[in-house]
């Protein structure tokens, strides 16, 4: 069979990745620079027997995917900053009620309406803390069209397994960029779908111990009875005010991440074996860093790139080890220091940390990163 090579936008690859992962429901409201995700889903889903629904706003959009997912669908929505802000309340509901779904945020410049057609990486902290209360967060950040496809598939797998909303944090640069990619053949990428309960409905507890990561959970309407609420609840989903049950629920949410960090974290490293300088970057900004470190290497500078594709949970241990190992860390991002703050939190060894930032809607240029690298060696 001949290879299926296509020229695709990051947004189109995201939609195709969703279909590959078995997504059968999309609900949302179009917003630049994420609209192509909805357009592609509107074209593809009906042909696959899935459902696409455009709602009156983003709040309703995320509401439909939570409902669809609770009823057993693999569901996704896509938005950008202003819509992501509107989704925060129900994102928390998804965490509390433990509903698997994928929320794509193609980041544009903010705050507020900001820069509809220009990119940014300034929703990193909103992805983590935008909804209130202690809660688990998984957010993935692609740096290429192909990664956009693959991380969308991964986002669905993690949502199903960890039973929670997973955020795909794209940015306008990668979302709107076109590259060619080879479409993975059916079966080439691993897909995960959560198991259904095998106990009788009388014995079933929707939030029973062992069901939080990789365990079975039932869909609404499948014959298993349970309650869903945003209130802190017991194993059956009914609201509780009991201290022991509250503690149990909150630990359950926390442990999803804390006890499974190794399988969640992915950090790509380039030229790090002998590096004395490490550039920390991710998403669209990493493309400038990749070019810059190659130009610096050509000048004989020992520099490497550290690029997390899982940005939440934050890869503390891997980055701490690198902070201890290298002489200088350069943090390249398209925001006023959201990644930088996390690096500073980890920097117990007081390694020299230099920020390279841009927040005028444009990508960092390779020269901006290269100049910072060269400056370090002087």
């Amino acid at each position, binding site marked *: 069979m001949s290879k299926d*090579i*296509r*020229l695709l936008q990051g947004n189109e690859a995201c939609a195709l990745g969703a279909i590959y992962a078995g997504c059968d429901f999309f609900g949302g409201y179009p917003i*630049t620079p994420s609209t192509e995700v909805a357009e592609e889903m509107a074209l593809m889903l009906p042909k696959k027997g899935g459902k696409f629904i455009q709602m009156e706003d983003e709040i309703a959009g995320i509401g439909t995917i939570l409902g669809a997912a609770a009823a057993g669908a693999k569901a996704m929505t896509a938005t950008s900053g202003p819509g992501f802000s509107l989704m925060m309340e129900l994102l928390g509901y998804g965490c509390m009620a433990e509903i698997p779904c994928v929320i794509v945020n193609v980041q544009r410049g903010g705050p507020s309406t900001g820069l*509809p*057609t*220009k990119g940014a990486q300034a929703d990193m902290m909103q992805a983590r803390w935008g909804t209130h209360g202690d809660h688990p967060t998984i957010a993935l950040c692609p740096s290429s069209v192909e990664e956009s496809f693959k991380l969308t598939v991964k986002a669905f797998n993690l949502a199903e397994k960890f039973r929670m909303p997973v955020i795909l944090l794209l940015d306008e*640069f990668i979302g*709107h*960029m*076109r*590259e*060619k990619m080879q479409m993975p053949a059916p079966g080439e990428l691993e897909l995960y779908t959560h198991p259904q309960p095998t106990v009788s409905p009388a014995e079933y507890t929707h939030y029973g111990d062992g069901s939080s990561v990789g365990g079975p959970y039932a869909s609404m309407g499948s014959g298993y009875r349970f309650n869903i609420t945003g209130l802190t609840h017991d194993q059956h989903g009914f609201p509780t005010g009991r201290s022991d049950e509250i503690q149990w629920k909150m630990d359950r949410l926390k442990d999803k991440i804390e006890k499974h960090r190794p399988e969640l974290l992915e950090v790509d490293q380039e030229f790090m074996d002998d590096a004395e300088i490490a550039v920390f970057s991710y998403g669209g900004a990493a*493309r*400038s860093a*990749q*070019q810059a470190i*190659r130009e610096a290497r050509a000048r004989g500078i020992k520099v490497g790139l550290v690029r997390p594709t899982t940005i939440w949970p934050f890869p503390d241990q891997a980055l701490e080890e690198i902070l201890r190992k290298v002489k200088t860390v350069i943090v390249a991002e398209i925001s006023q220091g959201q990644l930088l703050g996390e690096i500073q939190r980890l920097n117990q060894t007081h390694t020299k940390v230099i920020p390279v930032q841009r927040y005028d809607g444009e*990508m960092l*240029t*390779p*020269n901006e990163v290269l100049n910072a690298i060269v400056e370090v060696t002087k």
Partner: protein
Amino acid sequence: MKNRYEIRLSGSGGQGMITAGIILAEAAGVYDGKNVVQSQSYGPEARGGASKAEVIISDKEIFYPKATAIDILLAMTQEAWEKYSSDLNPDAVAIVDSWYVKDLDKPGVISLPLSQKAREEVGLEIIANVIALAAIAQITGVVSREALERSLLSRVPKGTEEKNRQALEIGFRLGKEAKK
């Protein structure tokens, strides 16, 4: 042939510059087998305003997706020329639309009747972008004629194939005449 080209297609919103960029990138990437990255910038408005698409074509892996030193520039309007012609390589090929770009501040620019031929010979000014792509292919060799035709015909709406083929031929002809 060079092993890396940075190409910028610029004009006014609605002139099909982004479409042209996609067709060019698909031709070079999918049909000629090169590495390609295509990006664009445009304002919040649907029509009007300066618009540009950039395509990088390379034998090697491409990291930074934006153009920094232009090898090939197309400017379909005076505004686009003024806004996007400042970072040309010394040996860059610059092609402008003779109808809309009258005031040139650099020597050696190739001025072609792209929109004029589109109107007079095809009867559709909107197809000037296709004429421009064919002229670029003919003058620079950055993409093969066959790849350009395959990519174009896979992207255009059904029923417009003949007009698009005609536009390609006009572009190839203008390119040949310009090279003489």
